[in-house]
């Protein structure tokens, strides 16, 4: 049995290593990281725009005049509304860089291709098409999945041309900037012609642009899948499952599903921006980035603060007293490697069930609390994943979200306690036996 599970672990490590070293996966994970400063600082302005107090709008209008929100909208409109543009460039940039090709030209090329493939007009209230715009609906949340695809395809063609030496050769002594600009000419010709042809074909068949089509056939179903009760629970389970094997589950699962949960948050924000109220079951998506970052992974994946609290209050063994002391502060900031490797939880069959069960329970409670309308669904405003729980809940969704977090944390403490006590009793017995042996040595 032990042999089987360690075999399984070796295989799992191997597959995860293979998967995470795929160029596309690296580019996706590292590329999305570039959207973080944009969306986090945008969040500050967004939170000032939408404070969850009644009478706030009137209060602000009283001080700064009726157009008080307009400058704030300028900032949020330049951050959340263009996340797909940031992503398409960032992903192509990382991909080219990893392939040792000149990255900036590749990033611009991906941006150009993306814009070729989105609508070039918006409809005004009367339904008339207005040109001369880059529609923010497609530059932001609704374009996320398409941005990933366009970036990866463009970057691969760019790198392919680079590998095959398909570029205009420059004589020695030509400055590097000039060489780079010229070396992008052939991939630019290829990819832009390809986008041009795709635009014509997709338009002829579906009457819409490629980006709109990808949104309908791929992004909406993916968002729907991620937004289901089962999807939410599965996400929580998988994060813990990988961690149990010693693999950074939040990083792995988040790298894949992060762009979708982010799109869910942005979809909710679009509803708020339209002046409507988010209602779960009608116009709100439940499983947002905030649920993934600030609920399921509270105090670190597995919501391991339950173990820390048990250790601080009840530990008899030196080992776990020390572990509790060591893990408390990082745990408050949602970092729990000391627990995962120090307890350890990795490959520890006794801790497998609470470690997976607690986050699953957390996912279920968060989902239901939102579905029944107790906790608000989250828009684009986000806090860093290191924000301590309860504070993060309060910032994101007022006292109700904070209360949901408190309930989950309390349940985590209760569920972990019996498991922790067993581990502690064994450690205590081991320590006592070791002391006895030491005593024997003295004689």
């Amino acid at each position, binding site marked *: 049995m032990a042999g089987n599970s360690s075999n399984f672990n070796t295989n799992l490590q191997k597959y995860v290593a293979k998967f995470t070293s795929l160029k596309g996966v690296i580019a996706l994970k590292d590329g999305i990281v570039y959207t973080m400063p944009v969306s986090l600082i945008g969040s500050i302005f967004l939170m000032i725009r939408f404070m969850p107090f009644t009478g706030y709008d009137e209060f602000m209008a009283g001080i700064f005049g009726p157009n008080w929100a307009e400058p704030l909208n300028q900032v949020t409109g330049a951050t959340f509304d263009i996340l797909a543009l940031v992503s398409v460039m960032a992903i192509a940039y990382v991909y080219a860089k990893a392939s040792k090709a000149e990255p900036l030209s590749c990033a611009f090329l991906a941006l150009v291709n993306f814009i070729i493939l989105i609508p070039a007009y918006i409809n005004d209230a009367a339904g008339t098409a207005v040109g001369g715009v880059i529609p923010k609906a497609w530059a932001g949340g609704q374009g996320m999945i398409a941005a990933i695809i366009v970036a990866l395809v463009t970057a691969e063609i760019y790198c392919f041309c680079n590998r095959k030496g398909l570029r205009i050769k420059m004589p020695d002594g030509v400055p590097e900037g000039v060489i780079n600009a010229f070396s992008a000419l052939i991939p630019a010709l290829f990819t832009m012609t390809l986008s041009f042809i795709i635009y014509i074909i997709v338009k002829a068949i579906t009457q819409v642009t490629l980006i709109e089509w990808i949104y309908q056939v791929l992004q909406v179903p993916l968002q729907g899948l991620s937004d289901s009760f089962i999807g939410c629970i599965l996400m929580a389970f998988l994060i813990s499952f990988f961690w149990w094997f010693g693999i950074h589950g939040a990083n792995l699962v988040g790298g894949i599903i992060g762009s979708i949960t982010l799109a869910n948050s942005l979809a909710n924000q679009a509803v708020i921006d339209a002046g409507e109220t988010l209602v779960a079951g009608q116009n709100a998506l439940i499983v947002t980035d905030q649920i993934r970052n600030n609920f399921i992974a509270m105090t670190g994946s597995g919501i391991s603060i339950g173990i820390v609290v048990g250790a601080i209050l009840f530990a008899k063994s030196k080992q776990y007293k020390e572990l509790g002391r060591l893990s408390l502060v990082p745990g408050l900031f949602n970092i729990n490697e000391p627990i995962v*490797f120090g307890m350890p939880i990795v490959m520890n069959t006794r801790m497998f069930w609470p470690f997976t069960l607690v986050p699953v329970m957390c996912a279920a409670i968060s989902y239901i609390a939102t579905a029944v309308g107790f906790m608000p669904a989250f828009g684009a405003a986000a806090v860093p994943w290191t924000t301590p729980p309860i504070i993060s809940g309060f910032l994101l969704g007022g006292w109700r979200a904070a209360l949901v977090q408190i309930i989950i944390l309390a349940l985590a403490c209760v569920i972990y306690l019996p498991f922790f006590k067993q581990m502690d009793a064994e450690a205590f017995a081991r320590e006592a036996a070791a002391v006895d042996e030491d005593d024997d040595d003295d004689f």
Partner: protein
Amino acid sequence: MINVLLVCSAGMSTSMLVQRTLDAAKKRGVEISISAMSEAEAKKHLDGCDVILLGPQVRFLLKGITKLTEGKNIKVDIINSVSYGRLDGNDVLSQVLRMLE
């Protein structure tokens, strides 16, 4: 001076090890400079390192990082998961010194 780079997913949990390892080095009189970074950051800062240590939770990066450091005389390994869990700077320092032997 030994240059050490600690790598984990976000550079957060390894950063807790930095000060502890520096303290251990001071006690043992080893001249060392240590920084902790996320995997994405780390890939830009490989040059000039003597040792790169990965957090055990990102051990799946080993192959990729080893490939990037090919021919650069940089030693790459995974931090022992027990020392990592205990945030044992002394153990980590010993591991660094063993790798450079």
